[in-house]
């Protein structure tokens, strides 16, 4: 009875977490349908492994870890393949993407700017800055040392700062 009840509590919690899984997936994967497929696979894997979940821990980092690992193992390959196809077929119209923002193009769209980040940096940035995970939780989700979390976070932020031109910069850069 206790186990069954736990399962039900788990499913309910999983339902409540699903919108946040979708948000996380979309920040990693540009294609909406592919992001939802990733969430779908995450839900199924989480349900199959719910007996492994320690109920004293927070569910969201556990789910993020599943999603992120699936993304690495299954989806990244497909995404890369699709992107290459896309670039091959529409290379004419994408001439501006050929001159990468390194050459001074300023982006106003953060999702475009995210695409310019190495995937490992992007992942850390969205976990911290979008999903609000604590550094310790990021360590658990990604299974990397805290020092690596910090250096990736720092690089992601500095790269975005080069790429993005938020009006806030100018107003806040005043010297007192």
């Amino acid at each position, binding site marked *: *009875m206790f186990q*069954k*009840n736990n*399962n*039900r*509590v788990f*499913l*309910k919690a*999983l*339902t409540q977490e*699903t*919108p*946040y899984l*979708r*948000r996380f997936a*979309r*920040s990693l994967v540009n294609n909406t349908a592919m992001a*939802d497929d990733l*969430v*779908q696979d995450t*839900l*199924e894997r989480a*349900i199959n492994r719910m007996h492994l979940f320690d109920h004293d821990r927070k569910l969201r980092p556990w789910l993020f870890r599943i999603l992120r690992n699936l993304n690495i193992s299954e989806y990244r390959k497909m995404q890369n393949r699709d992107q290459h196809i896309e670039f091959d077929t529409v290379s004419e119209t994408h001439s501006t993407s050929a001159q990468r923002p390194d050459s001074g193009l300023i982006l106003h769209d*953060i*999702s475009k700017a995210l695409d310019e980040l190495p995937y490992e940096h992007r992942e850390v*940035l*969205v976990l*911290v*800055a*979008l999903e609000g995970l*604590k*550094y310790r939780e990021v360590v658990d989700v990604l299974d990397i040392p805290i020092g690596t979390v*910090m250096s990736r*976070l*720092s690089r992601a*932020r*500095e790269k*975005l*700062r080069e790429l*993005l031109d*938020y009006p*806030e*910069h100018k107003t*806040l*850069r*005043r*010297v*007192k």
Partner: protein
Amino acid sequence: MTQNPKIEDSMLHAYVDGELDHGAIVEVEAWLRENPADNARVSAWQAQARGLKQTFDPVASEPLPPELAKTLRQHGQSEWRYWGRQAIAASLLLALGGLVSWNFAPKHQQGATGIELVVAQAMSAHSVYSPEVLHPVEVAATKQEHLINWLSKRLGQPLSAPDISATGFMLMGGRLLADNGQPSAQFMYENSDGSRITLYVTVNSTDQETAFKIASANSLKSYYWLDGTLGYAITGEIGQQELLSIAQSAYDQLTIQI
């Protein structure tokens, strides 16, 4: 100009991410006042975080795509069916006499204040109000919004009246009940034959959640469960299978809200 010790970048990130204690926050803010370049970087990082939230937060408010909702519901229901079978197998039969004495039990013994009390009160309230011809409900379903708001306010948490019209039962309305000094709510539904079933909702004061259970007294049956901060019972004098499917529909809406 800078008498403060140099603040490392990792501290600045930790500041932006809310990882610092009060003392460290004061230190970093003092540094930022003196170091406009770092202040600009910190501001830019904060702006990035706002940009990310503005871009992606709306995703979390979208309704779930049907495939995802289906995955969750299917598993929820297979769980549910399992409990339903268990409940029927256990077939917890209660005599009406026992039911009545339960009603007064908590005054004398604290042990009876759990889920048994929920179903006893639900069945008692059903017996009293469902035969009513003139005043079956206090507030009719035509004023559903008012009804829900009122009862939610009295119970101190958001309630909802599930839509079980697919089973032929339409919401008539609801009323506030008093159970041992605590407010509870009763929603009443009726089908075209004039059969009535009630959904009883009360505050779950036990800290427990339970699987589905069934109680019966003569021809009156009730499916009941505790979920989070509320306890529920679906009660009626109809076939067990029919009541089960109604309870299942209500349960899905009340418990796994998609």
